[in-house]
């Protein structure tokens, strides 16, 4: 519709000034009158029953308003389906304070509400609760034989495709073979912002929940069903989210408890979880992966098998796509993929950044490295020989796939040709071992149904809104850019609003689909507004646009002008003022074009080159250099997209070298449930990271040509680093994270 003025540019975040000055408001920061404070008490046992709660002792304290537990929780929705949110897996969702049964360690068992924060915390410290303990099972290792294949259940889960060819026979007969098991422990999202809800009591049963969530509509639906509220009486707001990474996809117990308490007490309630309690809900599951690869004499893959087993809770079957990627990333005619779950006395796992693919790419990409060495091939050359031109899982062509360009451009940038293949063959000037490794992956490019609204006022200011989320992804900025570009306005003349159920519905902020989904809705809505503006412009006396159709004009520099003759233009502001309207509005929505899309496999790809330096005597590993080459369609904002990939690399470094939630099976509890012992990288751990976006045009995925960038960048990072550690030391670590003791 107009020339590119904004899309693709490295525009600074429009919400940047609010974030750097502390004026951006997060869920626990809304000042509401007459506020009370809640404090959650968590179960110390992993399985059993609550036998007594000595609430009376605490209620005697002046200023303590209530102790909520299963003993006095109000009567709520009866059926499981009322508790199922948009991404609930199959099974029976956890109901906070529902009965006296304990299903996992740190389960919320009571909520103390008091007049102020200090008193709520103090009162909670006094509460005595008696339990009857039962034997729990929390070890995946003991459940190897108890795996089962889950049903479809959860949105987005695809069971592995059926086997193709004859993988067992092909493996037996091939000249080069490998098989190995790969393991990583549980991981917790740990966004910086604690889960919190400020539930504002608006009188007469009306609630506004300022909640930490990646989907305000998902939370609204959850609350209205459980508490029997009308949608109009239950507004959910999230203007800023201090990191999500998937933790806010499902409504968490904090919002349930805060809203329940507010409705019962008819007071506003603020509830913030502690960092310890951030380990009491979803996590990336502890996963065992088994891979079996074989290669022909010419370096082509002869057989590939990938099987995964991970934990889930007793009450829900959490699923993610771990192994499917292995059937489509490389060309191979003999493939068998398997995926199983095992039930433990833990909380249900939860999608965590690149769920499934981050896990699967560890197994596949370390196995590919092992296979390359077995076959005597350079790991990059090995991948090039097995390049998949077609998605063999679905037997469809890719809508676009520039992974080969990622390989070449990434290798050139990194200097891969200077690598010597033998482990331990490269050292720096200080004598430290140098290792270079690669790893990559593939991620879905999806689009979900979204709606948006646009309104332009007489002064020429455009406000566009959709209830999307902003958790650091840059949503405010890219939507502003799309709107500004579509209607030819400067960035400053556009405001984008999000995160509020009073706005048109947007999907959950996840799956890397916001740019494609909400972005397309914003584009369509602005185009609809443009059409209205054109009609108004044609009503002007002597309008040079008379008779012009929408496709005959363009919106540039605050004007509508003829494409064929740029001098034939009208100023938008003049149109608005002459119209006599105070504002002109339009709303629209966007759906994926299924007919067009279903003929293709829609995916983004990447490859990561990593350099590590290893101190032989100390076993310490430093990731000194990373190049991440990504093919993810059109990049809307080079600055924010680069930041997403930089962050993904940090996540990958963390996964490779630091991150693991360690379970003490005696107590059935995660032991390192704090920021000091749950290790994530700090500034000193991060060195040079280079991000390359390979040009990739795609008019099939969606009208914007974007594939999403929040997850693909994380794929293969942990494998690349682990492979680099092998290259440096000759030690093949298959149990992540790679810690010092595994190298000494």
């Amino acid at each position, binding site marked *: 519709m107009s020339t590119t003025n904004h899309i693709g540019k490295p525009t600074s975040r429009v919400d*940047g000034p609010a974030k750097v000055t502390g004026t951006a408001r997060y869920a626990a920061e809304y000042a509401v009158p007459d506020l009370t404070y809640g404090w959650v008490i968590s179960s110390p046992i992993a399985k059993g029953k609550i036998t007594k709660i000595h609430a009376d002792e605490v209620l005697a304290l002046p200023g303590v308003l209530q102790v909520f537990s299963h003993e006095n929780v109000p009567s709520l929705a009866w059926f499981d389906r009322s508790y199922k949110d948009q991404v609930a897996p199959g099974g029976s969702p956890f109901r906070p304070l529902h009965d006296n049964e304990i299903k996992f360690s740190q389960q919320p068992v009571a909520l103390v509400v008091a007049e102020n924060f200090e008193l709520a915390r*103090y009162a909670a410290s006094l509460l005595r609760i008696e339990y009857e303990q039962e034997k729990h099972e929390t070890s995946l290792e003991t459940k190897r034989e108890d795996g089962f294949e889950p049903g479809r259940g959860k949105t987005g889960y695809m069971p592995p495709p059926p086997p193709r060819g004859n993988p067992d026979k092909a493996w037996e007969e091939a000249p080069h073979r490998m098989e190995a098991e790969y393991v990583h422990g549980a991981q917790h999202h740990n966004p910086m912002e604690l889960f919190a809800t400020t539930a504002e009591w608006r009188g007469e049963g009306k609630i506004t929940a300022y909640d930490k969530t990646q989907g305000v509509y998902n939370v609204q639906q959850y609350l209205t069903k459980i508490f029997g509220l009308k949608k109009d009486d239950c507004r959910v707001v999230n203007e800023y989210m201090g990191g999500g990474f998937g933790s806010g996809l499902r409504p968490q117990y904090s919002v349930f408890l805060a809203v329940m308490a507010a409705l019962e007490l008819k007071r506003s309630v603020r509830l913030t979880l502690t960092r310890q309690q951030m380990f009491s809900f979803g996590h990336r599951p502890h996963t065992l992966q088994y891979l079996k690869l074989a290669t022909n004499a010419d370096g082509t893959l002869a057989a590939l098998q990938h099987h995964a087993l991970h934990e889930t809770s007793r009450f829900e079957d959490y699923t993610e796509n771990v192994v499917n990627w292995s059937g489509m990333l490389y060309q191979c005619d003999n493939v068998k993929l398997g995926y199983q779950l095992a039930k433990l006395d833990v909380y249900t796992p939860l999608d965590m950044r690149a769920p499934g693919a981050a896990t699967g790419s560890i197994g596949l990409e370390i196995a590919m490295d092992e296979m390359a060495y077995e076959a005597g091939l350079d790991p990059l050359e090995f991948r090039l020989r097995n390049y998949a031109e077609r998605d063999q899982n679905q037997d469809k062509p890719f809508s676009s796939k520039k992974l080969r360009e990622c390989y070449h451009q990434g290798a050139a940038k990194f200097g891969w040709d200077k690598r010597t293949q033998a482990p331990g063959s490269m050292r720096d000037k200080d004598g430290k071992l140098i290792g270079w490794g690669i790893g990559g992956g593939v991620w879905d490019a999806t689009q979900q149904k979204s709606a948006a609204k646009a309104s332009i006022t007489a002064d020429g200011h455009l406000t566009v809104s959709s209830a999307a989320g902003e958790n650091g992804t840059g949503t405010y900025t890219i939507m502003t850019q799309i709107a500004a570009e579509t209607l030819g306005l400067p960035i400053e003349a556009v405001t984008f609003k999000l995160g509020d159920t009073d706005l048109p519905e947007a999907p959950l902020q996840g799956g890397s689909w916001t740019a494609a989904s909400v972005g397309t809705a914003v584009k369509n809505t602005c185009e609809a507004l443009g059409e209205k503006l054109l009609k108004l412009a044609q009503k002007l006396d002597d309008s040079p646009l008379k008779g012009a159709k929408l496709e005959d004009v363009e919106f540039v520099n605050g004007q509508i002008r003829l494409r064929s003759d740029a001098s034939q233009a009208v100023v938008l502001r003049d149109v608005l003022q002459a119209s006599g309207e105070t504002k002109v509005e339009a709303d629209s929505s966007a759906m994926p074009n299924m007919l067009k899309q279903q003929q293709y496999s829609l995916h983004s790809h990447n490859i990561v080159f990593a350099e590590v330096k290893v101190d032989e005597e100390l076993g310490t590993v430093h990731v000194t250099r990373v190049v991440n080459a990504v093919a993810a369609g059109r990049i809307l904002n080079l600055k924010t997209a680069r930041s997403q990939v930089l962050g993904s690399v940090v996540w990958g470094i963390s996964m490779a070298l630091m991150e693991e939630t360690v379970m003490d099976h005696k107590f059935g509890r995660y032991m390192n449930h704090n920021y000091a012992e749950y290790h994530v990288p700090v500034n000193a751990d991060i060195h040079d990271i280079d991000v390359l976006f390979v040009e990739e045009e795609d008019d099939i995925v969606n009208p914007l040509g974007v594939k999403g960038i929040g997850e693909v960048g994380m794929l293969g990072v942990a494998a690349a680093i682990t492979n680099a550690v092998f290259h440096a030391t000759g030690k093949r670590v298959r149990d992540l994270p790679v810690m010092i003791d595994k190298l000494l």
Partner: protein
Amino acid sequence: MTQQPTNSAARAGGVAAPPPTGPVRLTINGQQHTLQLAPWTTLLDALREYLHLTGTKKGCDHGQCGACTVLVDGKRINSCLTLAVMHEDEDITTIEGLGTPETLHPLQQAFVDHDAFQCGYCTPGQICSAQGLLNEGRAHTEAEIREHMSGNVCRCGAYVGILNAVKEVVDRKSSEHRS
């Protein structure tokens, strides 16, 4: 089993009423406030819950993440690890005291320019910490900045941008000193 209260007074068999609140005088961003606080109110909670200065963030409440970093007489501290009552007659500077969206502090501007954040939740703490670092005058090289900014966790992983933003201001300051 019985979940023992975490409070030792209660373990001894009684439920004691909390000690009374008292007035606490605080000077924040040049402005004087007198708050009525329980004596164990942390400086962080006093800022966030009593003064609505929510720019200072709570990420762990244990001094492990740095999101609550503020400046006390120019020195950076974790405001979650200290009680409000300990800071009477000291000058406390929070992110709100450094700049506003209309008039950004040079560090705030550098953070925007270098995209030194994503979700923004650790950002006020990072910026206060960087100001503390500038006041200390001991970080000059990239390695030194990385090391001395390592008390502030950024889960989004914006460390490359944080380094570049802080480096830009450090370099500018040292060139001003030279000239």
